[in-house]
């Protein structure tokens, strides 16, 4: 136990915090609980962070970085249809990420979290709108469609949570995603 504590990094704490958020929302992030889970002392926590708020902020910044990484990975894909397909396949493959997003907006986030949440939302909607613009939609339409696409993405995790057996799984989920992308990118 003691040995584990001495080798804990900041990322171990932020990862544990994100896992706790995914499971039980922002209120599930408690220094003591996380310390127990990591087999560390509270002292080792305060070596990395000044308080719980600092940990929360570091955790959502780490989450933002995974969002940025996905955008960097898929931005070079030339065909905007393929780009969106790959982006969402990747996003849906990580149900953990979706749970974090649902949890972050289930209750009013503290200011430091709210700032990151707003930035991530704008970044993603802009990225989707740009792809839709390349497909030939004019700006207002691309923006509306980007919002519909993004809200459906976010809401899919909530629907799944609310009614687990109602959401298709495996290959059937692939068909659901195909339908989503077709619906949003179809020319009326």
């Amino acid at each position, binding site marked *: 136990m003691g040995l584990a504590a001495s080798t804990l990094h900041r990322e171990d704490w932020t990862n544990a915090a994100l896992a706790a958020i995914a499971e039980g929302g922002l209120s599930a992030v408690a220094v003591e609980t996380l310390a127990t889970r990591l087999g560390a002392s509270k002292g080792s926590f305060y070596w990395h962070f000044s308080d719980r708020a600092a940990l929360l902020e570091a955790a959502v910044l780490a989450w933002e970085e995974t969002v940025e990484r996905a955008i960097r990975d898929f931005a070079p894909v030339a065909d905007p249809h393929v780009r969106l397909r790959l982006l969402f396949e990747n996003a849906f493959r990580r149900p953990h990420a979706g749970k974090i997003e649902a949890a972050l907006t289930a209750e009013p986030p503290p200011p430091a979290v709210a700032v990151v949440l707003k930035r991530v939302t704008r970044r993603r909607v802009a990225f989707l709108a740009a792809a839709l613009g390349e497909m030939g939609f004019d700006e207002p339409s691309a923006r509306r469609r980007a919002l519909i696409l993004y809200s459906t993405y976010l809401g899919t995790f909530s629907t799944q949570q609310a009614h687990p057996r109602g959401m298709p799984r495996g290959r059937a989920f692939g068909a*659901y995603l195909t339908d*989503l992308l077709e619906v949003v990118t179809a020319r009326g």
Partner: protein
Amino acid sequence: VARTPQLKPDDWARAALETIAERGIGALSVERLAGQLGVSKGSFYWHFADRAALIEAAALYWEETGTAAGQRVMQAIEDPRERLRCLFADAFAYPRAGQVEAALTAHASDPVVGPIIRRVTESRLAFTTQAFLELGLELPTAKHRALLAYSAYLGMFAIRRADGRALPARRNLDAYLAELLAMLAAPTG
């Protein structure tokens, strides 16, 4: 403090839902709620065994007023497209309702709230699937479209919380919903 002896269980349920919408289930406290309603904690225990019983009553109240009652009215609209239009307009017009959904859904694994949420979600999906079927879509597609519509609805409130200004202004909401409905009602291929 004004005495309100005529306070009914529904008054408590409604007040509890307000708190859940604004600050989540975690923020719900019997003491604070009693203070808000201007009554004693004792009057609470006259109606409810404990906080969990209040949460259950609030979720049941939400099921009845937020879903069952609305569906009874909408069911009378014969044209499926018009029914969906009314359903969307009604659902998206009240951000407060969506906040309740988001807050309750976060507790979907709760043994008391979970089954109510599943029942409501199932009933809403079935209601919407039915309308898409009447529009001429095949069953698998109609089911997808209902899931997409419901997810778009839940996700809209997540975005509202993340960045309120990202969403269309109230005056543009009709156009936004018309576009959403046109997309979802379109045949495949």
